[in-house]
């Protein structure tokens, strides 16, 4: 085992860690908002909204994330420049980057998985509590904001923690579309120094550390809102 390269590549590793964490934070936070919409469409939407949301979830959960990522990066990415004027627009520097496509595909994928979890949780909220809220004169939006959604999120919290860890473990795929995330840095170290295991080991330690951090944070949130059994 040879770790001499560590000090030389430390800045690069830190940059990679930032890329990994920002991919995770972006996809989880935006994906969660999308998931709320999808879950409500499936639980209380009309037939069109319900079927659209279900089709979305089936498609994104039934195909590998790698294919979705490549579909966006190579597929949509090769169609984008055909839109007139897009190369001159201020968004072009962002739209050109692999990071943008990775963030979008991770977000859409996370939303599909999270919507399934939330759908189950929305259905698990006791009917009596919703009826009580209606009887107290709450409108539909107030009911969702004050009672239905918070209760459902609390019910789903342990599962959400698991989903976030799964999402973290999916982020190294971004390296296949030229994002310099943690894994890509390990790959670069391997190419530069011809060491195979040491960089993977260092990166693995970081992923395990992040996993522990995520579980700890969610334990903390769960402790904040105790559930009476």
């Amino acid at each position, binding site marked *: 085992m040879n770790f001499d390269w560590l000090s030389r590549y430390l800045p690069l590793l830190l940059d990679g860690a930032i890329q990994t964490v920002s991919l995770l934070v972006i996809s989880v936070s935006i994906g969660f908002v999308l998931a709320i919409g999808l879950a409500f469409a499936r639980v209380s939407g009309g037939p069109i909204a319900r079927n659209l949301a279900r089709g979305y979830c089936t498609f994104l959960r*039934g195909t*590998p994330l790698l294919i979705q990522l*490549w*579909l966006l990066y*190579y597929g949509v990415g090769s169609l984008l420049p055909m839109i007139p004027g897009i190369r001159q627009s201020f968004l072009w520097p962002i739209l050109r980057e692999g990071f943008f496509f990775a963030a979008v595909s991770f977000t859409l994928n996370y939303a599909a998985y999270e919507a399934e979890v939330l759908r189950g949780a929305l259905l698990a909220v006791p009917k009596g509590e919703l009826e009580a809220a209606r009887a107290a004169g709450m409108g539909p939006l107030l009911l969702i904001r004050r009672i239905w959604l918070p209760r459902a999120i609390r019910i789903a919290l342990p599962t959400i923690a698991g989903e976030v860890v799964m999402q973290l473990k999916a982020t190294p*795929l971004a390296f296949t579309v030229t994002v310099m995330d943690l894994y890509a840095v390990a790959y670069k170290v391997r190419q530069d120094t011809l060491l*195979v295991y040491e960089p993977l080991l260092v990166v693995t330690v970081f992923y*395990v550390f992040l*996993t522990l951090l995520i579980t700890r944070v969610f334990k903390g949130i769960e402790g904040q809102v105790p559930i009476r059994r």
Partner: protein
Amino acid sequence: MATSQMSIWELLSPVPPGWGGTLLVGAASTVLISACAFSIGLGIGLLGAAGKLWGRKPLIRLLDLYTGIIRAVPELILIVGLYYAGTDGLNRLLASLGLPTIEVNGFLAAVMVLGFVQGAYMTEVLRGAIQAIPAGQLEAARAFGMSPLLLFRRVMLPALLPNALPGLANLWMAITKDSALVAVVGYQELALATRLAGANTKHYFLFFFAAALLYLAITLASNWVFARIERRVRRGQPVVE
């Protein structure tokens, strides 16, 4: 360029100027890799679950380490790491025995690596399913004088299958999609075949979309098969709505 004038159907046609055949072969290879890795994982899982339930302390520690690490590390890192570690380790072993080094078959390496990863998840699924069998049933079988093998075949297996099947179905879905990751180490299955088709014709969107539909078809077909199997192993059980 000739390919740019081809229509969608010509591009997807299964005979050579089209790339449909390449995609279908890739899809078959994906299913084959998944099935082999699933079986290896099932074997490891059965041994692992037995070890965790009835093994000695050091063995249990070791298995806890195995399942813990495999489930905490990203699949891509595991697959790349195990791929190199596996082929490299094998060649070092051969070299130390004075044998010539060999080029490890990509299919075999992919299957072994994916199976090893699946084994960790299988261990946990099967352990839970075995623990959920009422102890009295196993004791009754022993009281009748059944040998361990007969007990496993006649009592334990039929009793654990209904408990384990949803978990096993989940793992099968996961591996059909995770097998796309072996594209990264260069083995040609559906994902890599698609990238090849896209790179050659520049119709990336079309081919990746077609590949997505193929994966979706695999998933939906598996869903149907597993529902049938589950109905079969649950026959005679009270219907829970």
